[in-house]
């Protein structure tokens, strides 16, 4: 589980973000068939639009919102991966996900999110900034510029750090 980094001032808003993500998902439940997948980043954006209009004071800053959403999304995806693993061990029925079918022309190699989470935790010990950049970009879908704004560094640095973190994680997951 990623550490609940209280140094981030907006951390107390996490349950709000999480609930909004959940409500959006609940609306999908009523109109989509089981196994439907969404792009995490699209979901995050939808949540932002809603929360920013409902609670403009807390969520005036989009990048800050995205930073919280990235952490929420990481937790959700890791929990899901672990629950899947547990369900498999428990003999629950297998279901086919539609990831491949819905991803378009080139289906991405599926990533073991639980393993990624562990590797990311190890990376955070070596280089906290790189780990945060991965969290923001991958789980939160932030652009290089948005990530730079959240972290208070230049976009060029974000790119270099991202490149190394990505290479390091790729090795860690092989």
């Amino acid at each position, binding site marked *: 589980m990623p550490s609940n980094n209280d140094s981030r001032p907006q951390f107390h808003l*996490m*349950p709000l973000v*999480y*609930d909004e*993500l*959940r409500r*959006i*998902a*609940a609306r*999908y*439940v*009523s109109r*989509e068939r*089981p*196994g*439907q*997948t*969404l*792009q*995490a*980043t*699209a*979901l995050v954006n939808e949540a932002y639009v809603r929360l920013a209009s409902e609670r403009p004071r807390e969520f005036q800053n989009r990048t800050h919102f995205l930073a919280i959403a990235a952490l929420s*999304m990481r937790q*959700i*995806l890791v*929990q*899901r991966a672990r*629950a*899947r693993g*547990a369900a498999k*061990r*428990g*003999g*629950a*029925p297998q*279901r086919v*996900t539609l*990831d491949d079918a819905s*991803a378009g022309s*080139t289906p*991405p190699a599926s*990533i073991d*999110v639980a393993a990624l989470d562990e590797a990311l935790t190890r990376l955070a010990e*070596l*280089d906290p900034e790189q780990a945060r950049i*991965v969290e923001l*970009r*991958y*789980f939160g*879908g932030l652009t290089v510029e948005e990530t730079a704004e959240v972290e208070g560094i230049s976009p060029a640095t974000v790119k*270099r750090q991202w*490149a*190394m973190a*990505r*290479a*390091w*994680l*790729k*090795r860690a997951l092989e």
Partner: protein
Amino acid sequence: MSSGDWTRLKALFQGALDQPAHARERWLRDAAAGNVELLQEAQALIDAHETAGTFLDEPPAIEVDDLLGLTAGSQIGAYRVIEEIGRGGMGVVYLAEDQRLGRRVALKSLPPPLARDPTFRERLRREARAAATISHPAVAVVYSLEEIDGHLLIASEYVRGHTLRAELARGPIDDRRAVAIATDIAKALAAAHAAGVVHRDLKPENVLITDEGAVKVVDFGIAHVEGLEATRLTRDGGLVGTPAYMSPEQLAGRTVDARSDIYSAGVVLAEMVGGGHPLSSPAAQLPTSLAPIVQRCLQHSPTGRFASATELLRALEDVARPGGARRSGARWWWEFHQAMAALTYWLMMIPVWNARGAIGGAAGRAVFVATLAAVIVAANLRLHLWFTSRFYPGELKWLRARVARWIHAADWLFALSLVTGGLLVGDEGSAVTILLLAFGIGAAVAFLVIEPATTRAAFRSSSK
């Protein structure tokens, strides 16, 4: 890797990236200045970078279902989730506050991968209905079944405490406490069975011990409700239940009834007092007063087990009162009758020995042998009953059912042998003749009239 190494690795990696791809390898070799380990690491990272393709570029896909899990601080309907307190393959349990009533509740929902599966949703609904029909202090109270924002939730009594599993993990449980816990489990099962519900997944994880020491049986998740169309649903889900605690008939996928829960309760009891699962640790490790109860629960055939949780409860209560403080006068009288009958039967072998001589020949020997055979069976089985009643009361009813026919047959043989012997001796005035005839008729009266009366009195309550 030390932070100094990391910093140098970073410098190497990023320096190499600034070079055109074909020049990177040479640049790295120069820059590493003979540090082979660092060079290898940097080269491996560069290789990974160059072959990374779209790694991590595609945002992760998320299943709608995966967002349905609750988390601390979530608000769902009138409930505010405080924390997750339990998770298994079939359910996630949260501690939550019902803000309408200002009380704490346990919210049970399906784990995200199953949350939208209609079969599992129906199972959760059935669990709520099954548990809601049971009203007993040892069964957690179901408050309501809620469907909010696509979530299906059972709100039930929040039990502050720990699971029996946690208690087992801390070390052995002393026998008295184990019997007390097993007694409460038996009461909960009796209440459930009376409501027509078979738990089907009784195990230490599903037995909660409150901070006050009370027992609450939870998780009627795969409960079978008599009269409901229930079996098909759980059968479709494959083998449901926890194999180590499942009765043979449940493992075999056959119809199960209340006696299947008795089996599981036996496994739990054995684990509490024997320190391990009964099938992996020998029964010899069980305390002598409880071994017969456990063995009886674990009979392969349901007919060999206690017929109901109430019977199991009685057996446990008998163990809990050593020396038979609650033992009725009638029971004492029945035991006395058994012991005296056994003694009298054996004493009668003396006059029968004399009669053998008086009758003589093959007839005399036949009478003697027939009487001896009858005495061996009838007297010894009675002594066995007496002994069991004194020391293993939980076993008694089962034993009585098994030996009654033999005792009855031996009694008849005994009475007939005595009367035959008396008649064959023939001499009407002889003491042996009178003795044999009197005791033959007396024995018949005793086992036909007196013994059934003392037995009825002693076992009136439990022979229903």
